């Protein structure tokens, strides 16, 4: 028990330098392509987990909704796709890194001018909006920008520019959240 407690009380370490983190991430992405032909991804897993849950509760609805039918129609298991282990692996990786680097804390990061509650609401709202857009674009920053960017996929570069554009255009109007 004490060993576990001390595991969660490690001294907080500094972050990796951005260029080093980027280089490591680039190598990970390359190895993914080398071994599997797939890059990275995330939002697809969210859709698939959703589909699995809907299939559990309302399988008839799955067969009537074209988007869900593709993933979970009939006997198809929506969770049996490469992106789902990646999703859970990423969760585990984040956890291990947080604990190992003494950064595992039940805490809320937010801008100085808003309350925790406001931050939670905005995080939830932002998550909703982001994943809606991610499914519309058939991928998020990892699936489209990073992976598609590295393979020179034209659409992925368009998506990447659009993400940054959208965020920069709105930044001034939501500055209260962060500054």
């Amino acid at each position: 028990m004490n060993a576990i407690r001390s595991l969660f009380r490690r001294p907080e370490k500094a972050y990796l330098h951005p260029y080093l983190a980027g280089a490591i991430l680039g190598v990970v992405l390359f190895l993914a392509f080398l071994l599997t032909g797939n890059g990275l991804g995330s939002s697809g897993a969210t859709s698939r987990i959703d589909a699995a849950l809907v299939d559990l509760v309302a399988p008839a609805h799955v067969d009537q909704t074209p988007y869900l039918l593709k993933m979970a129609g009939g006997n198809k298991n929506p969770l049996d796709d490469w992106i789902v282990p990646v999703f859970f692996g990423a969760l585990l990786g984040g956890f291990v890194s947080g604990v190992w680097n003494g950064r595992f804390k039940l805490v809320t990061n937010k801008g100085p001018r808003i309350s925790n509650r406001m931050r939670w609401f905005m995080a939830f709202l932002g998550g909703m909006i982001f994943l809606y857009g991610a499914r519309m674009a058939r991928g998020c920053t990892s699936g489209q920008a990073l992976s598609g960017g590295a393979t020179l996929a034209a659409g992925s570069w368009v998506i990447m520019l659009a993400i940054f554009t959208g965020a920069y255009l709105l930044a001034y109007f939501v500055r209260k959240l962060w500054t």
Partner: protein
Amino acid sequence: MNFPLDSLSAVSTANPWSYLVFGLVGFAFGLTLEMAGFGDSRKLAGQFYFRELTVFKVMFTAIAVAMVLLFGAVGLDVIDFSHVWVNPTYLDSGLLGGLIMGVGFIIGGFCPTTSLASASSGRIDGMMFMAGGFVGAFVFGETEQLFDGWYNSAGYLGRLTLDQVFSTTAPMVVVAIVLVALVLMWVAEQIERVVANKDLASEPALRKYGALTLALMALGVVVIGTPSLESRYQSAQFKRSEPALSAGNAKPLMGAASAPAPIAQSTVPAAKPQMVTRTLSADEMLSARLVYVTPAEAFKARFQQSIKPIYLDVRNEADFNLYHLAGAVNVPLAHLQSKVPALLTEPAANTVFITIGNDEKMATQAWKLLVANRVPNVYILEGGVNQWIATFGAEDTGLKALVKADDDQLRYSFASALGDRYKSCAPSPIEYEKLSFEPRIVLQLKRDKGGGGCG
């Protein structure tokens, strides 16, 4: 050239290691993001107020490094790029989806995987973003049917890469992007210095060597170039299954000319034979005649539900106009290479190409060209048009067999250039209902169907 590994092209219970490999990829991903500090939404949002440009630095360094390594490996023919998932381009939904993501990013302070790293390292805002994400993805699934048509076709350009857009080669695009990225990194550092008062002297000097190394590696990619067609032809691989030799079978069904097949002895007499999968090179496929389809099989292919044959007539226009199979497409051999991008992206996944010449020489050359370009499911019409007419043309009028003809020339003379208006161009399926042949067509499904990518 063996990469990417076929066994890891998707997860499957037949190969349980696949789950572990993808899990490890994700683990490294989430770990690196947390190590970079992306569990903290302030670090992510700071990008858009020019407080710190870590998001840009990490993303573009990652893309640049991965790109250089990827196209270097492709150039060395270590990775077969046609087996690498390239996100198909849907301009309209991509653009709108991207803008929406940007809005979600600045409101929520995360992107999906950073929210995972954040949530799993205890941050409550990360957890909320993650939870909201499940709702947003669900809402998309429900509303998608309202714009199904637009979503599935607007601005669809297929597997389009930047080198095709700018009519150049992939290595040139790589070097351009790396150089632009390095310049932008320098700009980003200046912005951080000016806006956020960052002391650049405290930045590690090593980064300049890193930048230099990356630039040199990008130049290396240009020097390596793209693998030659000849080299790609030599590294092409075909898989065929055949029943293993057992007490019952005297010889394998396929008469392989060269290397002996790996033989598994079946110990169960008179039971279903075990199938052994062989990997053959392109030349082996040719010498074993495994890619030559008889006129009978080529004819019957039209009526099979599972495959969609395209009769690719690679003869010159003059011969084509004299006589060609009904529905055949004329692409003279000299122009075939320029048609390859269309052949790779446009046809349906179950398309089978049958190259057609007068005899076999030209059609075989065409086959080699398409194989080198990794066009899947290509076959050759055995005996060419000459054999086709011999098989189906008994009742044709207006054509006469020649006594002598050179190799790969038409062995018939034609009263006029009727093209496909002879009876044998489209044989009657009723008349020729019973035709026996040894089937050669084995449909290989393309790698990047719905299985790849984030969708």
